[in-house]
């Protein structure tokens, strides 16, 4: 009976774990007992685990990860630095919104990643091109979410601050900024995904180091276990960052969890 109650309470975690374990076991045993493994075409979990251990302990992948993170952080910081002020300006001044909105919406809706080859030709193979690509892709969620946040600021709160003699500075710091913060956090999660796309495309296209480069090189040289290990590392990183952002969002705005913007 107790077992049943335990299952009822944790059925999601239990079923999830079971399905992942079953997937791994079936994958492993299929390639061990049923189908002969062609190492140039496929691999199996035990080999991936060995490669993962090798890569993580002996650290070739750490260096690639560090290279990628540096470019990512540069681009992402620039996106925050430009995106939030532009968005706030658009939200606060009606004419700024009218002027900038169609232009920026068109850019946001279009696949700017198509500019990647040009960026690499112009800025060269290396940090700058990748950082610019990340910036270009991840600046728009910051702009539009800040914009939406400022726009949805409660007018009543603004009037209250004004009535009590608050200055423009007080308005920004005490009302607009706090009420915009959860929107920005939601934007950051979207920007994160787009920024990762920028890094990967930049490194696939032309690079000599970085996690994307490592994965595509392993693919080119048919080192499938190492390639899967690289993908696994990237997956773990992406999930940790996305969930971290989600936690941050919940922390900043516990009253509007699970409300997706965009």
């Amino acid at each position, binding site marked *: 009976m107790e077992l049943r109650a335990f299952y009822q309470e944790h059925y999601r975690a239990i079923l999830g774990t079971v399905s*992942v374990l079953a997937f791994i076991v079936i994958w492993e045993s299929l390639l061990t007992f049923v189908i002969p493994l062609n190492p140039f075409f496929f691999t199996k979990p035990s080999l991936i685990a060995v490669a993962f251990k090798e890569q993580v302990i002996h650290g070739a992948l750490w260096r690639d990860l560090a290279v990628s993170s540096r470019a990512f952080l540069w681009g992402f910081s620039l996106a925050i630095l430009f995106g939030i002020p532009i968005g706030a300006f658009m939200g606060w001044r009606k004419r700024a919104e009218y002027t900038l909105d169609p232009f920026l919406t068109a850019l946001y809706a279009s696949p700017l990643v*198509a500019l990647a080859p040009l960026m690499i030709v112009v800025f060269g193979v290396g940090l700058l091109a990748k950082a610019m690509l990340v910036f270009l892709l991840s600046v728009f969620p910051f702009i539009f979410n800040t914009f939406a946040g400022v726009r949805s600021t409660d007018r009543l709160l603004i009037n209250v601050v004004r009535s009590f003699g608050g200055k423009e500075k007080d308005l920004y710091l005490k009302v607009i900024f706090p009420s915009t913060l959860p929107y920005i956090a939601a934007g950051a999660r979207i920007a994160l*995904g787009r920024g990762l796309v920028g890094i990967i495309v930049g490194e696939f296209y032309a690079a000599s180091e970085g996690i*994307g480069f490592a994965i595509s090189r392993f693919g080119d040289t048919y080192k499938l276990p190492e390639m899967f290990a690289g993908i696994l590392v990237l997956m773990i990183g992406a999930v940790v960052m996305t969930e971290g952002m989600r936690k941050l969002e919940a922390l900043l705005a516990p009253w509007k969890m699970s409300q997706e913007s965009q």
Partner: protein
Amino acid sequence: MNRLVNFYNEREHYLLGWGFILILMLAWETLPRLVALPRGLTLFFTTPTRVVEAFYHLIVENKIQHHLYVSSIEFLFGLALAIGVGLPLGLIAGRSKIIDAMVDPYVTVLNATPRLIFLPLFILWFGIGMWSKVVIVFIGAVFPLLINTQEGVKNVDQVLVNVVRSFGANEWQVMKTVVLPNSVPYIIAGLRLAIGRAVLGVVVGEFFGASEGLGYMIASAATNYKVDVVFVGVAIFMGLSLALTLWVKKLETRLSRWRPEDTKAF
């Protein structure tokens, strides 16, 4: 004078928006005529008129049609596959708690990871032809569709489901009369996201190990410093994305016409 002011005030929204784009275009066009650009920069510089010219030449010389055709086929195949898999799976996962719990880890992990990372793997498995691109488009577009469909199914009004059940409907009839119509706005929102991902998949998929398609055209033009051709490709992708986004929005209003106004927003 007063009439002019009125005219401006009434259309300020459009005048400012389009005016800004126009001014940017003009500035882009006239910049190289006003100031002498450094030599290193002229190599990478082009103007809107030259882009239009390049576009015209590409069409006349029949150089772009084939690329456009290949990219469209990849896009359509991949998106159709994503709809064919994502929609049913989302409906099932939304109705069954057990399947939802079993699928959830994969969906969470794969949705957080940029699926483009699988591109080298798909090229290895499916070759450098069309199919590796179709698969990358598929895997990019399937998750927004699946997640949104599931969300729509979960948010269905339980009272309505119970009413239909009381009148003796089976699971299929519940699905058809209540669940599916209710999920339409969610599905359309998913479709909008999926289209964006699909276009991304086409572009990036064709950058690497391809010999045809618009992405290939852009990549090879960039390596040959044909900046105007790069912008032709970028402009086509931009136009197509905007057109598709507008079309989906139209579809959304068309499909939720029967809905009372206050429930349209979600």
